[in-house]
């Protein structure tokens, strides 16, 4: 899942759960049935799980574009100077 996909998945999860909660509560309250509220919400949670948890192709529409390897060869990393003092912590690469 790419970055854009992760953002979409999280927003979709939140919106869907809140939406189902609102629908479930309204239906349950109007019908006077607590059980109905729980069933609708449980169904909503299952549906949301199916939509947002697996890594669907839908979430991979914006792949990261890495630089071409040839580009790296053109701009080589500066060589690290070899330090004589071995007790010093190795610098981060």
């Amino acid at each position, binding site marked *: 899942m790419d970055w854009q996909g*992760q953002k979409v998945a999280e927003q979709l999860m939140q919106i869907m759960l*809140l939406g189902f909660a609102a629908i479930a509560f309204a239906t349950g309250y109007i*019908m006077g049935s607590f059980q109905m509220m729980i069933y609708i919400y449980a169904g909503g949670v299952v549906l949301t799980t199916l939509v947002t948890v697996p890594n669907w192709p839908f979430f991979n529409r914006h792949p990261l574009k890495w630089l071409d390897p040839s580009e790296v060869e053109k701009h080589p990393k500066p060589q690290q100077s070899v330090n004589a003092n071995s007790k010093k912590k190795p610098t981060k690469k």
Partner: protein
Amino acid sequence: MHSFGYRANALLTFAVTILAFMCVISSLSDSLNSPSPSAQVQVLNMNWFQKQPSGNDEVSLTLNISADLQSLFTWNTKQVFAFLAAEYETPKNSLNQISLWDGIILSKEHAKFSIHTSNKYRLIDQGSNFRGKEFNLTLHWHVMPKTGKMFADKIVIPGYQMPKEYR
């Protein structure tokens, strides 16, 4: 949201949080209900009235209890516990409550009832104060919701009197 497990965890946490919130609102919605219950109790007969060897008065009653508690039921009500208590004052205790009958009402359909019964639990005084004693019969109820806050209330029916003499 980068992995399957992370997304599943986030979804479950959020779903349960919303569920808790829905339960809170369900409980709050109970306060929109303004119930209007009614109750009548008739003492049909004082079966007997005597002093126990231990010195405590005991009386046996035949009662007709009719009540309409249907308006207590909302969509968030699991059951209603109702009990009828004899309440009276003695020099020793400012309030004596003795349960005479109780019942658990599981549905709105059963919340309107009329019961003909003798007292389910024995009506015994602490001492010997019953002769000519005036007492109230009070129908108490406790509403037990599916989620959230419990409610309790009562209807006091005054104006009953014990016999003047043992019999």
